[in-house]
């Protein structure tokens, strides 16, 4: 990471930290901000799996459910403190992810998509009848977190928990992708055969990718549970629809980029809500769909590359100019 990039990240973090209190966001928007950062964590995890390791998953809604219910169970039934429950939710979801990674060893593309889709359906069905763990359809009410007696009651205070976690996870992700593990994942994505020949244990890295991705999502699940304060097994956030939504986030944000994951999560969380107050009922859905398509058409690789493309255009202008001079001299 070069200095320029460092600085822009730091500026971003500053903005993210200061904007909410300065703008004094109303509760509903602050809540939306919390929610979009939670989804951003999922998107980063999913991007690690899809963008870097090249493995598809339609089961991330289910991972979110695993994380959310684990955290609820740990805090409510076993009275584990929130922050420990948070980590444990990540770890346990990560283990579940490793299990789901096993089919991935043999399946690819659509076949893997179906296996993960099946996982998604299965988890919600199982959670619906596993009432001792989930409370079934009557629902369960995770509490607001507490640390040293301070209760994170407001969406703003909770926001800072999420923000710090996001930052930490972004840094960890960044470190992972630019070292051995990241390179192995990408190599496996680009050419499984060459990766094997270079000594990469593809089975190990595939399961690792699933585990890692699930870990992130489990953390997000825990945060989701305590943000919402109430959930049932058929909650939309745990559904296939949401899994597809996560997919849309990373694609319009930018496959294989961390910033893209965050951008995508924010767009996909805010856009439908911003447009939903329009007078015609299904207009918001139509607009959201249209904007998703427009983004993909104009930025097929995601918005994160928008800057790069602008730069490209600029350089092309410049390059043309330069080329012409060269040609003249040579002729």
């Amino acid at each position, binding site marked *: 990471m070069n200095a320029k990039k460092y600085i822009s990240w730091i500026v971003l973090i500053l903005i993210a930290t200061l904007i909410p209190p300065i703008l004094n966001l109303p509760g509903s928007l602050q809540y939306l901000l919390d929610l979009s950062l939670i989804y951003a964590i999922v998107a980063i995890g999913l991007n690690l799996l899809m963008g870097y390791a090249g493995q598809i998953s339609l089961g991330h809604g289910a991972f979110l459910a695993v994380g959310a219910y684990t955290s609820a169970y740990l805090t409510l039934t076993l009275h584990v403190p929130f922050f420990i429950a948070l980590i444990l939710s990540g770890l346990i979801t990560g283990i579940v992810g490793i299990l789901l990674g096993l089919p991935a060893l043999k399946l690819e593309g659509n076949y893997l998509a179906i296996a993960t889709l099946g996982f998604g359906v299965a988890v919600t069905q199982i959670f619906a009848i596993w009432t001792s763990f989930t409370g079934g359809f009557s629902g369960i009410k995770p509490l607001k977190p507490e640390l040293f007696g301070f209760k994170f009651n407001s969406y703003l205070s909770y926001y800072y928990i999420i923000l710090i976690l996001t930052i930490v996870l972004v840094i960890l992700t960044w470190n992972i992708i630019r*070292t051995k*593990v990241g390179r192995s994942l990408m*190599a496996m994505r680009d050419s499984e055969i*060459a990766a094997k*020949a*270079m*000594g990469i244990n*593809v089975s190990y890295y595939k399961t690792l990718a699933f585990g890692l991705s699930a870990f992130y999502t489990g953390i997000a699940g825990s945060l989701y549970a305590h943000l919402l304060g109430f959930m049932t097994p058929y909650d939309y956030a745990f559904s296939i629809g949401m899994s597809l939504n996560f997919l849309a986030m990373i694609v319009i944000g930018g496959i294989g980029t961390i910033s893209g994951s965050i951008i995508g999560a924010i767009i996909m969380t805010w856009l439908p809500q911003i447009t939903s107050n329009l007078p015609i009922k299904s207009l918001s859905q139509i607009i959201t769909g249209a904007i998703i398509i427009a983004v993909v058409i104009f930025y097929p690789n995601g918005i994160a590359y928008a800057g790069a493309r602008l730069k490209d255009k600029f350089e092309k202008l410049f390059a043309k100019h330069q080329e012409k001079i060269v040609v003249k001299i040579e002729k």
Partner: protein
Amino acid sequence: MEHLIVDNLTMEFGGLKAVDSLSFSVKKGEIYGLIGPNGAGKTTVFNCVSRFYNPTSGRIIFEGKEITKLKPHEIIRAGISRTFQNVELFKHMTVLENLLVGQVAFTRENILSAAFMLSSVRKEERRIREEAMEILKILNIEDKAHEYASAQPYGIQKLVEIGRALVSQPRLIMLDEPAAGMNHSETDELAELILKLRDELGITILLVEHDMSLVMNICENICVMNFGKKICEGIPEKVKSDPAVIEAYLGGEEIA
């Protein structure tokens, strides 16, 4: 001293015997050529040695140890590294990153130490980067280090593959048609490079190539295959004048 022994190797696809009871051996520090008509089974031999294919029968012994049961990703740690006939680069990674992948099996960092960027990781990263740059320098493509591998012309891609195979510091390297798509002067440079690898780094080389000027110039021994079988083995002079080889492979008077 026998470095690599291929012993009675057979590989069938359906009814087709791509490799048929083939035996040959390569001495340490040797440049050994494996040639033969298209479809003779050369690449299949490579794929058996690097364990992508499970041979129908036969054994492969490297440095005295049988490697026939190893997994593909364990081969590089055994000391064997390879390139591919149809270039298999990591397309969405830069040239340098492609080379770094060759180091994966030899670095000690793990997911946790990397995630927290311990100083050991940082040191290791710096080391492997330097080593990879060294190799790019040897290949004379260090200026391409930060360009995407897929945007390189065919010939450069071939060099990058060789570079990627080299960073793992193999003791045996298998090159599958490295000169394909290169013109004469480029091929000459490649020949010098291969000699340098052997002479300066002591790497044993198993070479598949259809460019006879290259093969005949640098190989000490050559095995000629046809229909999966060995039809001739020996020094270039012998092979070149063998009627069976001429008939099946070289075809007529002039060579190259």
